[in-house]
């Protein structure tokens, strides 16, 4: 059961990572990040069977941070969209030098 959950968690994490790296749509990248977070959550919950309750407590923290991040992140994306009228990250390359 734990092993199966860990494999699922790893698969979800890889999918999320690839989503972040490959996709250019900011919303999709955002969702992929959420997928990574939840892959980790799954691993925490699964491993709490072996190690105890701490993993499940930690999941709540992750969910809280994820919610906060979603609020801020979506706000930024909307603000960018209003300015550039696109959410394709290839257009956002001010983050250098």
């Amino acid at each position, binding site marked *: 059961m734990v092993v199966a959950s860990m494999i699922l968690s790893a698969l979800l994490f890889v999918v999320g990572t690839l989503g*972040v*790296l*490959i996709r250019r749509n900011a919303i999709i*990248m955002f969702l992929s990040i959420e997928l990574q977070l939840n892959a980790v959550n799954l691993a925490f919950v699964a491993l709490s069977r072996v190690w105890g309750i701490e993993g499940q407590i930690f999941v709540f923290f992750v969910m809280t941070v994820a919610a906060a991040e979603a609020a801020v992140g979506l706000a930024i994306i909307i603000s960018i969209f209003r300015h550039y009228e696109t959410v394709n*990250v290839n257009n*956002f*390359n*001010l*983050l*250098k030098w």
Partner: protein
Amino acid sequence: MLLTGGTAALQAGTEAGSQSGAGAFVPFLPGLVVLLPLIGFVINGVLALLHARASAVAVRNGGELDLDGPGGRPLTHTLPTWVGPGVVGLAFLITLVNFVRMLGVHLEEPVVRTYWTWIDTGTFHVAAALQLDQLSMVMMLVVTGVSFLIHVFSVGYMGDDPAYPRYFAYLNLFVFFMLTLVMASSYALMFVGWEGVGLCSYLLIGFWFTDREKADAGKKAFVVNRIGDFGFLVAMFLLFSRFHTLDFVPVFHGAAAGLAYGGGLITAITLFFFLGATGKSAQIPLYIWLPDAMAGPTPVSALIHAATMVTAGVYMVARSSVLYALSPVGSATVAGVGALTAFFAATIALKQYDIKKVLAYSTVSQLGYMFVGVGVGAYAAGIFHLMTHAFFKGLLFLGAGAIIHSMHHALHHTHSHADAQDMRNMGGLRKYMPITWIVMWVATLAISGVWPFAGFFSKDEIIWQAGAFGGAAHAPYPRLYTFYWILALAAALLTAFYMTRLMVMTFHGPNRTGTEESRHLRETPAVMWIPLVTLAALSLFGGWINVPEKLHQSFLGLFGALPMGEWMHHWLEPVTAAAQQIQATHLGAVSESAPFGGGEVLWGVVSFLLAVAVIAFAWRMVGSRKYVPAEESPADTGFARVLNRKWYVDELYDTIVVRPLKSTSRFCWKVIDAGVIDGIVNGLGYLARGLGWFGSLFQTGTVNTYALILSLGVLVILGVVIF
């Protein structure tokens, strides 16, 4: 009040050294002898600064400082007249008191007065200490006495120069350093004086520094001297490595035991010290600076470049007599270089037209004699010739200064641009300057070695000793010394010739100055001719203090009637005794006859007759030649041209030393410094810039790239951690 305070401090100096015999020698204010010229330097230096400021203010206000204005000469111009000669005269008087005190006792060991510790690091200790013995006493008398006369002469010669206070400041500073040199009790302190006189020489050669040529002459003197100073330093290092001290007394006491006779170390030490001497005393191969040094004011040439500073090398060798006696190779080199220089410089003097150049080469030649003297173990004879040379060469230079002064005035009246120093422009000055004429003849007869003038006794003894040394029982290179003897004898004849030529061209024959100019030729004022007459008296009688015993008993010494006999020889005995003993042990007694037979008296008569014959010959030969003023004179041809151009030695040095040095420096500058060194530094800059450019390629600004690199990084770290 200030003086007495200083005196008390000087008296407080501790005393070392032991005396034997009746009564102890108590030095009288030896520190003050050195200190007085320094005080004079400070006072004159301050006056010079004030004077320079006043001139600058006058120039800014659109004029220039008028020395002969209605208000009279400013104090900054009149005070040096009293301060400059005054301090040196006082120093001479104090030296005289010490000399009289030393006369009364037989001093076996030098008296050393220690004032304070100068250097105290690890095993190296040098005290600021003055040493008084017979040798330093002779040097002090010569330095302060001749300096005083030349200072007085300078009052007349330099009186109208705008930079008059600066001149006396430098001159006093020179006397201070020269006294430090001759009174130092260790090689280290001697080196201070050695460098100091070099500095003053540089400052005074380039005294009229607005003239590029004169400034360059000063530079040349300084640079050439540095080569010699290198030798002096290396010799000191070698000496220290063996004795762990540079003080004279312990070094000379331990030398015979601590150094093998004729060993490698002592030979190296003596040769390196001699390299220093060749620089300071203008011997082959480093003599080239002295003729150029004539760019300075003429009293400077008389004081620094004839009477005192250039004899420092001779003094140093005589002071180190124990070391040189231990090294036959070192001594033979000293005598050989001296003999060669004496002859070589004399040949150049034959064809010079500049009166000061003749005297400059003459000085080089005479210094060569002194080195022959100290090189053949006749240390007293070398120092004796140093002293008589100070008298007659100082006189010759001052006489030349009087002539130039007078010529300059005459030419100035008619705004002529003729050379005031070229003897072809002179002639017949006897009429206008009778005193100068007489005293110059006295000096000429003295330097030519005519009995009973000073030069006869001093020069003849050196030539005799050179011959006699080669005949010593175990002389190291007898044939070599015979060669030196011939060279010295030949140089003596050349000396008589070029000096007579100088006199005839200057004072005799028709006047070539020009009719208008000649009406302005005047005898010099009393302030200038009184020193001349004093020196003339010394040039006449000065030789009588050291008449060799054999000459003294013969008619050349008026059958013992000359009052002093071999006084100088006996006076210096305590200083040279150790060296003489080493020499006697290893070489045996010196010969009683010259290389080709004949005794001392016979050769004395021969050299006297030869000198007279050469003077008569030169008188006829030069007197019969028709000279015309320099501008109309044709250039010399043939061998005369070679001599006039000084054997092309300056050109030779330019080709083999100066040019290669310059191109090497250029190579070091352009290729090594600008190319390699700067290349490396700039290359590092370019490398950093290139790496930065390469790194910036990864900074695309897009989030995905960063995320990719971050993920790859995590994977790599995970890989490292796991495997």
